[in-house]
């Protein structure tokens, strides 16, 4: 055997070892999900007697789902989550890209510098510092809590700085001023230039901002739980928490509720996996 062959063989063995290590870690990673999936098809008694068995003594059952869906009011909370996430994401994109546009093109205006620095500085403030005054102002003084629109606008307000920052970088580096000047000569005003020329060129950044924010809005618990106190306005995380509080002993139903809470985003992930991974990476690296 030559040295080259020996090295090649060694590399191959190393690769197999690494593959096995990865597989073991991967199985550990997804074990919690697998446990939920195998137990969701069991009766309450079977889960208690043996949570590790693949199939319970009383066999395979589907009846946890309809009951959990009814008790959790699944379609209603799913609708709420969907409505809030969609509206807030679209608004975030529109509002923050427009803000970024005016900030890039007029970076020398004093008011722009002021608001821009405020937005950048505010990104380090954790939500815990804002939650008490937020509830005091919008609950106590103005009394606008318990409306989905309030939550949507708050979501947008909290993410506008970060999203503006990402659009700011994209406009500054990717969109040449000459392109806009050409549009102006062709008779576009600023508003038309923005929507016809600049906004369409921002597509990759729009996708990144949309993915990061949509995931954050969909999974957020603390802010929605402070704003939406009425049962019919609950989003999925709040409904899961409330459901667990009431039915924690009925473990079969809990399993079904947890699976239902995860399912929408997991299904989405199967189809958009590549975009989500890319979006999250580029968002994290830029931000």
């Amino acid at each position: 055997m030559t040295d080259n062959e020996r090295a090649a063989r060694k590399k191959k063995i190393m690769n197999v070892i690494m593959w096995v290590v990865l597989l073991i870690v991967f199985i550990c990673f997804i074990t919690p999900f697998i446990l939920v999936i195998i137990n969701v098809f069991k009766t309450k008694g079977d889960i208690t007697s043996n949570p590790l068995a693949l199939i319970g003594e009383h066999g395979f059952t589907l009846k946890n789902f309809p009951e959990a869906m009814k008790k959790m009011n699944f379609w209603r909370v799913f609708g709420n989550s969907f409505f809030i996430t969609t509206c807030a994401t679209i608004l975030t994109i529109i509002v923050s890209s427009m803000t970024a546009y005016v900030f890039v093109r007029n970076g020398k205006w004093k008011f722009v510098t002021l608001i821009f620095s405020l937005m950048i500085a505010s990104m380090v403030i954790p939500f815990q510092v804002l939650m008490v005054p937020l509830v005091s102002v919008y609950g106590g003084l103005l009394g606008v809590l318990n409306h989905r629109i309030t939550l949507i606008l708050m979501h947008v307000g909290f993410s506008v700085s970060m999203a503006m920052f990402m659009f700011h970088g994209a406009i500054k580096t990717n969109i040449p001023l000459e392109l806009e000047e050409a549009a102006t000569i062709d008779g576009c005003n600023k508003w038309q230039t923005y929507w016809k020329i600049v906004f369409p060129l921002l597509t990759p950044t729009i996708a990144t901002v949309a993915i990061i924010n949509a995931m954050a809005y969909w999974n957020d618990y603390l802010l929605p739980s402070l704003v939406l106190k009425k049962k019919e306005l609950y989003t999925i995380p709040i409904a899961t928490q409330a459901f667990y509080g009431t039915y924690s002993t009925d473990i079969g139903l809990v399993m079904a509720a947890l699976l239902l809470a995860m399912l929408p985003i997991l299904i989405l992930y199967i189809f958009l996996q590549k975009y989500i991974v890319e979006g999250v990476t580029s968002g994290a690296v830029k931000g």
Partner: protein
Amino acid sequence: MKQNTLSYKVKQYLMFAGPGTILFLAVVIIPFLYGLYLTLTSWDGVSAVKPFVGFDNFAAAFSDVDYWHAMGRTVIYSAISVVLINVVAFALAYLVTKGIKGQNFFRAGFFVPNLIGGIVLGYIWKFVFNRAFVAIASAISGGSAPSLLSTTNGAMFCLILVSVWQYAGYMMLIYVAGFMSVSADVKEAAMIDGCNSSQAMWNVTIPLMRASFVQCIFLSITRCFVVYDVNLSLTNGEPFNSSVMAAMHVYNQAFTYKNYGLGQAEALILFIVCAVVGVTQVMIGKRGEVAA
């Protein structure tokens, strides 16, 4: 059209940045300033009067033993979690950039916990710790074993384990981007100069990935310090309030015990501690940055 008149500027600004600025001021800046004012009052969140008490809330916060216990716990929890998250994430990133079969599948798989909210993750793990692990432990010991979540140290261990599991996949993606940014040429050059592959790793790749480390550590510190969702669903502060983290203490202080002023003062201190640790880390990290 004149472009440097005040009315032109105002019109342009309001047309494009108006909505963004108003929402930002309304939910970030105004509450932040109002929060500073609240720390100077002893408001209960309900009554119309907000009695002015000066700096009493800060004095009370500094002598609130429960708060500092929660803070100490948060620091320990964050320190251990941050180290483990980054070690695991870096190791995973190393393994999934080696060109092994199915590495994209593994990458996507390790990221899955990040797709799901902390509340749901916490309840899933509560089931795993309380039922599945107990079943395994009972089978091994032959008797009935207690759940890890019912002991003080066990609850902390569980919180750390879940945080590592939750964030490792996300940080892995950042480290993967870091690995990709170090070009193969540099590593090859090092090998030609006589490095073996582990020397090339320590002396070439890792120093060039410093920015990724700074960023991942910053992200994990800032997330661990204000952990709330998983804390609420996994342990809810139990047993005997021994796993209440600082963020949960702040929440309870304000919304459960109705001490809005004190709660806000404690939140502000938490923010300052977190910001000081985060910024120090970034400054130390950036100081020795190198470029290829």
